């Protein structure tokens, strides 16, 4: 028998409404062990972390720490020795580093800054020799760089003598050097007997550090194994859920667009760079073509897309539409060139939820229709938009919040269709919509392309990439590592490009810039 479990997760179920976020998840963690919790976006990783942290409750199932059942509440979880370092770090930006680290002593009325500072310094000494944080105990946390803030979060987690440390996507925003430092450090903690749950979807980091893997997919355990028993390839397949294990080349889904006439370049992106986000990217978007850009979260794809419409300033490089150099001051000037960006977070930055469907449809075109700043109602156009895109709503006056997610997304697409956008950049257009709405949206996008538009779709979903794309683009750590026709690539090569930045499978640490 292996040493007894530190943490035992037993048949956890968790529902949000009707959807199961976790389905019968069981796992265990031993002292000194690093267990990697992996899974794609929405696989249930964060839900499990929240439950372990005590900030969310499972609907059924049991969690026990050293044999004792864990019940309810953040403090209970902390007292049991569980510490969580959230991806957003959850620090107090306006408080000093010392106060952040010393945390919240339990059960005492009195508070002393001096004691907090002493305890913070003691924690830092325990954590590493000569911690650079010792010099900035009196600084506010908001004044520190991200890597330093992360160290503050780690030190805080260790203040409570935690025996179970949960790190949620700790390397997502770190540079390579900081990542190295962190991984070494986590190893040291494990060697000292701490059980570590390392949540990540970055295969390269996980393979360097984990003793065991736990892969979640759609809320259920897809794979639980050790490094010696599994190849990186199989891990990736477990994460993404490929049905065809050996990636048989799918026949080109439809139409190679060549049949429809000569493709001409509409939108040219040349050697664009934003330091720290993406580097020297060149692509061409062509009329009647759907290019799908994919890559892991944090690979720079969204930053790239935002830069194309002037939401972020480019450090280098240029943009051209039909051969003419483009100077963008923001989305409004991009729109005047028929270039439109549909953001991923449609609820916050795409739609006006409390306004009517009609108003939302008009949202982009009002200033084009207005005469001397006065608006009239354009009932016909609105009706056409609703019927063309099959938007199911209680008429044009219904407020948008009464529509389902899929229909909201259709409103957004219809808006830009009415605005006669020629070049569309869509960030995760089908995130959070149901299967039938997704199929409808895909059809709409294909029609749109067929009618002469150039589309760049950003998607993290493997099936969507393979299904929708005429051309596939892959970002890896800010570099375009793959740019090819859909028929030239299969599922495995695509996964390898996303995870390693290289189409060669089983290469552990690919150099960014390789491949393609």
């Amino acid at each position: 028998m292996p040493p007894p479990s530190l943490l035992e997760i037993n048949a956890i179920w968790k529902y949000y409404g009707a959807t199961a976020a976790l389905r019968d998840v069981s796992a265990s963690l031993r002292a000194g062990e690093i267990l990697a919790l992996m899974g794609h976006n929405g696989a249930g990783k964060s839900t499990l972390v929240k439950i372990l942290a005590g900030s969310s409750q499972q609907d059924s199932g049991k969690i026990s720490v050293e044999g004792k059942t864990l019940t309810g509440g953040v403090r209970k979880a902390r007292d049991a020795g569980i510490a969580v370092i959230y991806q957003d770090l959850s620090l107090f930006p306006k408080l000093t580093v010392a106060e952040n680290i010393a945390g919240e002593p339990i059960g005492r009325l009195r508070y002393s800054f001096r004691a907090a500072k002493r305890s913070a310094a003691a924690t830092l000494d325990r954590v590493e020799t000569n911690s650079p944080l010792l010099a900035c105990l009196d600084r506010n946390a908001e004044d520190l760089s991200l890597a330093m803030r992360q160290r503050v979060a780690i030190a805080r987690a260790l203040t409570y003598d935690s025996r179970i440390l949960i790190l949620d996507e700790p390397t997502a925003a770190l540079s390579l050097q900081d990542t190295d430092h962190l991984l070494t450090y986590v190893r040291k903690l494990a060697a000292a007997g701490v059980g570590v749950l390392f949540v990540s979807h970055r295969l390269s980091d996980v393979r360097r550090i984990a003793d065991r893997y736990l892969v979640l997919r759609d809320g259920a355990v897809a794979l639980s194994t050790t490094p010696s028993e599994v190849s990186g390839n199989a891990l990736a397949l477990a994460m993404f859920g490929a049905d065809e294990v050996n990636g048989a080349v799918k026949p080109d889904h439809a139409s190679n667009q060549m049949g429809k006439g000569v493709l001409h370049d509409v939108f040219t992106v040349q050697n664009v760079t934003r330091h720290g986000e993406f580097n020297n990217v060149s692509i061409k978007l062509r009329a009647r073509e759907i290019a799908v850009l994919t890559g892991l979260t944090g690979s720079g794809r969204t930053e790239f897309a935002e830069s194309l419409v002037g939401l972020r300033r480019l450090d280098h490089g240029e943009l051209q539409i039909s051969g003419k150099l483009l100077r963008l001051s923001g989305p409004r000037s991009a729109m005047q060139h028929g270039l439109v960006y549909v953001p991923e977070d449609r609820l916050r930055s795409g739609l006006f939820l409390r306004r009517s469907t009609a108003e939302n449809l008009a949202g982009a075109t009002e200033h084009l229709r207005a005469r001397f700043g006065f608006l009239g109602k354009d009932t016909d156009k609105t009706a056409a938009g609703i019927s063309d895109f099959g938007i199911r709503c209680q008429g044009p006056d219904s407020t948008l919040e009464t529509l389902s997610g899929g229909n909201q997304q259709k409103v957004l697409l219809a808006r830009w269709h009415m605005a006669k956008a020629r070049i569309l950049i869509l960030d995760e257009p089908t995130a959070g919509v149901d299967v039938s709405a997704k199929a409808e949206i895909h059809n709409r996008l294909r029609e749109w392309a067929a009618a002469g538009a150039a589309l760049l779709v950003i998607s993290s979903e493997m099936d969507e990439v393979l299904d929708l794309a005429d051309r596939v683009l892959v970002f890896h750590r800010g570099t375009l590592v793959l740019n090819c026709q859909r028929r030239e690539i299969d599922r495995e090569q695509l996964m390898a490009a996303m995870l390693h930045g290289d189409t060669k499978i089983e290469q552990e640490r690919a150099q960014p810039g390789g491949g393609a």
Partner: protein
Amino acid sequence: MKSSSSSAWLRANFHRHETKLASLLLVLGIALAVAAPRFFSSVNLALLARSMGVLLIVSVGMLNVILAGGIDVSAGAVLAVVSVLMVRLGNHGLPASAVLPLGLLTGAALGAVNAALIAELRIPPIVATLGTAGLFRGLLLEWTQGEWESSIPAWLNSIGSPRWGGLDASVLAAVVVALATAWVLHRTQIGRALFRYGDSPLAAVRTGISPRQPIYFAYISLGALTAIGAVFYAAQLGAVQGNAANGYELTVIAAVVLGGADILGGRGSLLGTFLGVLLLCSLQQALVLLHVATFWQNIATGAIVLLGVILSAAPRLRRRPVLQQSPSA
């Protein structure tokens, strides 16, 4: 602030908001020394201190609320309710030993109503307290039917009468309240929880701070301190009515914000609030002394509040993160 040399101390504190406020006060003081030297007479300074007492007591309570990321626009209404209640009960012959605790309890209870709306029903503070402000004030006017309480009990009158070289009990009370609150804010768990909750409610909850406790503490303490303020408010005026302290909450919020408290919560200090109150009251007093028309007093007050807020925002507009390079591992 312990430091080996005074220059290091100066450097560490140069950019603090309190330093800027003190400089602003110094400038005002120099201007007054030239324009109205009478300002610094002992009689006038005592008058200034008496005018600050009530405002400081209520502002300290408001600081608690603002630190926790809240706001309370019902403070003026609570002040009116408690002062009218205490004067009425006193005039009916109830002794001070009964009236004062009752007033304090009423203030705390009204604060608890605000806290419950915000913590339990999750109503945004500005809306919740706007509602209760109308409610409290309306009920008070219904009860008094607009009548003045034109006399106050003798014991209350004596609380408000000057002694100790022109100072009255409100000055002493303000000092005690300020010192006690400073201790609570900096030396107790609940005080630090106010800062934490106001800074980042999510992080606070994730580190095991109750999401309700700071809200209840902040609003109940404001209610209780407003009740203490109401005692001196009634005592100094000698008469009260239902429309008393109308709009007073705005002066209070202005003083706290001028004192450098972040209106979004998590940042602020008692020293700053004291300086804010001092600056506002000195300015008012000076303008009266200089026979400046009332509307100019409003303009000057508004301008100084804006100036103070701009001063406090300035470093944040320019700030760049330090330690951008991570030290080698």
